[in-house]
């Protein structure tokens, strides 16, 4: 009765979402990308991580050339004889995994800290928020840069760096949203009914702060992927033997003027499509989950 403010059911959200054709296409594309990334070892002709499978004599071949191993380099090969098509699939995998894992962990961490902060208030709140301030007073790229310069390269390290640069956004967003909810009547009512603190937080506040968070997180995955690419470009990201999309692009950076466009062009296109798809989905979700806008505009 007083527990839930007006909120759309998941069915309604689905219908609302589907009204935008572009957003539907984006979801389809995203699913496609996810599945090829997951099944990369099955659908790619070569394992680009295994140096023994590469042949230097096949290096820098243009798209459509035949490999000595028999398959065709549909998207060309890089300077090690790595099949760009396989490398992109594996790279997608790495990029998406790095983006998603770091965002989810950061989301969970930030959510916990934000809720605790909002609900506890007092000195704990100010301490945690000062910590958030401290964190946010540094631009994300700087923290990641310094951290990676200290700990070195590697998938695990880049994930840690991306978690570290993201959690504070969520903590602050959750705390803000939770504070607004906390002042609302239904929470007061719950408190009057002497519900336990965790119950109030998880049953009453969380469901109401979650929708904006999901939107933020969707878009953040795209940011995390882009940030990883940028760090790789600056030479601080993934090791070359396990290329992410960002690293593939920056590898091709050297070939940009030489006419071997495919080494950085195709990974760039893959990165672009992935990020655009994620952003479109995130945008649409935000529109749909924002009930006020939806009720007025419907589209």
């Amino acid at each position, binding site marked *: 009765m007083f527990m839930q403010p007006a909120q759309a059911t998941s069915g309604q959200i689905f219908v609302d979402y589907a009204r935008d054709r572009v957003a539907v296409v984006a979801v389809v594309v995203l699913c496609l990308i996810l599945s090829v990334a997951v099944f990369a070892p099955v659908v790619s002709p070569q394992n680009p991580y295994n140096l023994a499978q590469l042949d230097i004599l096949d*290096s820098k071949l243009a798209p459509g050339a035949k490999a000595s191993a028999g398959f065709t380099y549909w998207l060309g090969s890089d300077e090690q004889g790595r099949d760009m098509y396989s490398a992109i699939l594996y790279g997608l995998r790495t990029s998406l995994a790095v983006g998603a894992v770091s965002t989810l962990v950061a989301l969970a961490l930030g959510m916990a800290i934000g809720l605790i902060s909002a609900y506890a208030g007092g000195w704990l709140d100010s301490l945690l928020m000062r910590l958030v301030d401290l964190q946010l007073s540094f631009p994300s790229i700087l923290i990641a840069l310094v951290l990676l310069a200290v700990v070195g390269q590697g998938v695990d390290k880049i994930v840690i760096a991306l978690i570290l640069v993201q959690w504070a956004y969520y903590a602050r967003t959750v705390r803000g949203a939770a504070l607004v909810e906390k002042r609302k009547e239904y929470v007061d009512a719950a408190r009057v009914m002497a519900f336990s603190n965790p119950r109030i937080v998880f049953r009453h506040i969380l469901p109401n702060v979650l929708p904006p968070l999901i939107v933020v997180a969707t878009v953040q995955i795209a940011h995390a992927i882009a940030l990883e690419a940028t760090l790789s470009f600056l030479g601080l990201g993934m090791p070359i033997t396990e290329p992410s999309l960002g690293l593939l692009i920056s590898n091709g950076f*050297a070939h940009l003027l030489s006419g071997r466009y495919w080494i950085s062009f195709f990974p760039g296109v893959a990165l672009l499509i992935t990020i655009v798809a994620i952003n479109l989905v995130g945008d649409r979700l935000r529109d749909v989950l924002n009930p006020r806008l939806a009720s007025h505009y419907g589209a």
Partner: protein
Amino acid sequence: MSKIVGSRISDHGSRIAAAALGGWLATAGAAELRIGLSADVTTMDPHFVAAQPNLTAQHHVFEPLLHVDERGRPVPVLATWRNPDPLTWEFTLRKGVKFHDGAELTTEDVAFSLERPFTIKGSPGGFTMYVRPIVAREIVDRYTIRLKTAAPYGAIPQDLAEVMIVSKRIAQGASSADFDSGKAAVGTGPYKLVRFARGSRIELARHDPYWGGKLPWDKVTLTILPSDPVRTAALLSGELDAIEHVPTADLARLKKNPNLRLAQAVSWRTIFLHVDQSRDRPPGVLSRAGKPLDRNPLKDVRVRRALSKAINRQAIAERVMEGLARPAASVVSPSVFGHDPALKPEPYDPDGAKKLLAEAGYPDGFGLTIATPNNRYINDEQVAQTVAQMLARVGIATKVEAMPLSVYFGRARNKEFGVALLGWGSLAADLALRSLAATANPDKGYGAWNWGGHSNPKLDQLVERSLGTVDPTQREALAREAAALAAAGVAFIPLHYQVVTWAMKNTLSYQARTDEFTFAHHFKPR
């Protein structure tokens, strides 16, 4: 034009004339040369840190007593030299050499300059080691100075080629900042420092009373562009007249461009692998399954030779380096004093490699990790990956660990790598071997970069004798012998000699230098 009557020159005509005149003035009157450098210049103080990018800029303003020519052989600059006895180096200055402030160069300035590296506080330096062998400086007259060493030391010319001569009157008490501001940057070099914009560019103006004659460029701008494609783009767009260190990837495109031309030379720098042959369990050397081995296979010279045979150096030179490399036979590049032309690169022989591995007791190979920097040498991490591919083909499961130089050298010095890629450029074979192959001995200063722990008393002795020989002919023979011995023992696995390339407008020419230096005063109009 000759038929113009009276003074009525048409407006149109005069504009054309003015434009033509302007164009002529721009080319002939105020000739400017704009060069793109590949690395940052941190200071104009020539005695603070011995880094090649800094020296490149400083060579325009200052000069050493002697330097090397484009083939790496010592040539007189400010002085000629002779050895009255093996402990004495007598330098006779060129007469009438003028500093930028008009004062004449004297031996007082030389004595001061050879002392100055010791006096700079907080210097990571590198210059002190060049002047430390000199135990006494004896000024004979205004133009003659005698330098004494405690023991015979043949590498004095190579060492002093690195030490710039500054003006005593001006540099006395000057800080590094005074050199940067130009106040103390007063040398005898062909160009005067106009402005040092740190991280951006260095502006120079011609020093007209230069002893070497009049130079074609009134103004020189050295622009710092470490990013390879950006440097190429700046040349293609016409913003620059010439660039150094042409990236391998852009070579083909620049070659095809009719408005540009290239200058190339085999560099003094050799790229090679250090292999750990001293420890029982070097990091990264494991069984194929990743388990520790009971002994270090790299201690066996047959295994080291097998690794060498498994590498197709020609393919690396052609494919990875796009022709900007030559297969290497030793760590002494062809232009370096003490290079032995009789040494040939190990031919590519995968079957021979497998046979040797089987002989040594590793018919199924083993596992290896090659460590490499990823921002130091031309295509460094690509080269390491290609080597890994090739080793994999003879049964050695090879991984590559690439990292930035800032982390790499520290970890290498901590002995964290079993196999590590390194590039080396020395002006003489004995100098290179002293650092790379001689048994580590802090007291003598030997083996400071001997990461592999190679140790051969006979080699140590030869290096010591070579360095202690003042006569260049005898010294070169000893140095060659030492290099051949290191190669016979497979002290390291040489990969290739780098080829260094400059690209410039086709109205210019440059004498490509093996030591990779870019000097504006060596660019000539064609």
